[in-house]
């Protein structure tokens, strides 16, 4: 067996012969009809508020919970979620709240009114962010009574500081393993429904693990449906030690928001980058929990790329949050707002 000498040229030739249809008129027509961009406020629905959190949770615990479950014989699963995952989960989940009533636009300079709005929104996500950090220790999963049509049933309890959330999953699963010399591919697919309080939502979970030599790639996709046109798609990819998360929210069949997150560990410290994009908003922050020279903890939202400001969040003596805004380019102090 030997490598053909001309396969590269042959591939080039094939591409040269590929009939490329001119679709520019149809695109141009689309551009002309799309000139008015709709100003959408993207009011968040209750489904989205908790749904994105739940989607994150399922995605994160998916690797430990669903994918390692062999035949469902083990009655209790206690997935281990490391800080990195919990941090990602909490940050992600919280960020969904930012979409509420958001009408920020890409901007040259941050005005005080805009800073006020950002501070108010960030304040909303902070308690959620803090509480979800506790999820690391607060998840229990037990098998529960099965439902007709589903081979598996599990009850997930999330214990937070003052309350518990309980979800029940009913699902069927398929698993396929392909081994090709030093390449192994494991595909898992779950389809079912999730009950939260009195509501039922369909979900799919897809996991793919590819092992080639020393390299392992993992990819999980979780979709939680409110209905066929309204759903949240959450992806997690792990490759070469890098973790990437992606969220997309679809409303009426259209993607209205997407968030990407990259998690890196630098000098034993977790660095989380958030990229949030919608038709009316384009912000990118690096989120971290920092400690100042006096040993006091604070959150830092460091503006990246076009996000021209950073926010340092502390609490004052009466327990209010203080949001200090700084210009990203020259570190000039801009505003301090208390909520």
């Amino acid at each position, binding site marked *: *067996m*030997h*490598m*053909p000498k*001309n*396969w*590269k040229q*042959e*591939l*080039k030739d*094939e*591409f040269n012969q*590929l*009939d*490329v*249809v*001119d*679709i*520019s008129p*149809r*695109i*141009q027509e*689309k*551009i*002309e009809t*799309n*000139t008015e*961009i709709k100003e959408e406020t993207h009011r968040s629905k209750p489904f989205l508020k908790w749904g994105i959190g739940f989607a994150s949770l399922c995605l994160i615990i998916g690797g430990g919970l669903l994918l390692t479950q062999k035949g469902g014989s083990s009655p209790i699963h206690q997935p281990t979620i490391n800080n990195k995952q919990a941090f990602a989960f909490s940050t992600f989940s919280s960020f969904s709240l930012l979409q509420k009533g958001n009408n920020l636009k*890409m901007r*040259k300079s941050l005005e005080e009114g805009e800073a006020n709005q950002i501070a108010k929104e960030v304040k909303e996500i902070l308690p959620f962010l803090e509480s979800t950090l506790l999820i690391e220790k607060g998840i229990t999963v037990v098998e529960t009574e099965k439902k007709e049509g589903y081979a598996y049933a599990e009850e997930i309890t999330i214990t937070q500081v003052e309350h518990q959330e309980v979800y029940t999953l009913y699902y069927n699963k398929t698993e396929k393993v392909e081994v090709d010399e030093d390449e192994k591919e494991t595909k898992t*697919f779950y389809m079912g429904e999730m009950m939260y309080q009195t509501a039922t939502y369909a979900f*799919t979970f*897809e996991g793919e693990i*590819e092992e*080639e030599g020393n390299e392992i790639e993992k990819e999980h*996709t979780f979709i939680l449906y409110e209905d066929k046109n309204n759903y949240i798609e959450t992806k997690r990819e792990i490759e*070469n030690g890098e973790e990437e998360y992606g969220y997309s929210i679809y409303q009426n069949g259209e993607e209205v928001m997407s968030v990407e997150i990259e998690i890196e560990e630098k000098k034993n410290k977790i660095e989380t980058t958030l990229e949030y994009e919608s*038709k009316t908003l*384009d912000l990118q922050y690096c989120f971290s929990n920092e400690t100042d020279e006096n040993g006091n903890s604070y959150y830092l939202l460091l503006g990246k790329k*076009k996000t021209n400001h950073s926010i340092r969040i502390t609490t004052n003596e009466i327990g209010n949050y203080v949001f200090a805004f700084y210009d990203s380019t020259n570190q000039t102090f801009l505003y301090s707002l208390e909520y």
Partner: protein
Amino acid sequence: MDLSALQKNLIAVQEGNTSSFTFVYEDTHRILYQAIYFLVTSKEETEDILQETYLKALEHDWKNDTHSNPMNFLLTIAKNIAFNHLKKRKRHERIEEEHQIPSSYHENQEGLLHLLPQFLKKEELLIVYLHVVEEWSHQEIASLLHRPLGTITWKYQWALKKIKKRIGDAYA
């Protein structure tokens, strides 16, 4: 600040001069079309993804962007849309398989262009296309995909190994 002709035309389209799109399209459609086609191997799907790529690119703030390389930007969008599309397609194929419906996706054609996508991973396909057909350096591809140079080199070598293993006999 010198903007490329491509970026100037993108700005012109955004400012309402839709006829400038002709220049944008002429400058970019071949590489985008071919890269997408190599991934999805369907003309109909390629056309849809190509259209989505341009429409998405026109949502970008080109006027204030002094950093992005417009061609790389377009390729990145095309790659992301195509990758997402492939994931969705997988789900549909699974349903088709379960219900024994003949697959509606792959165009039944011969040649390397259709053979390689059957066993190379999506990122490997993109790397092979850019390096072999477009003659991009590994460094340029690394920059496009935001990957270390070593990863691209490794993936390319791995792809060559697979090609050798899978099609070597056919060319012997």
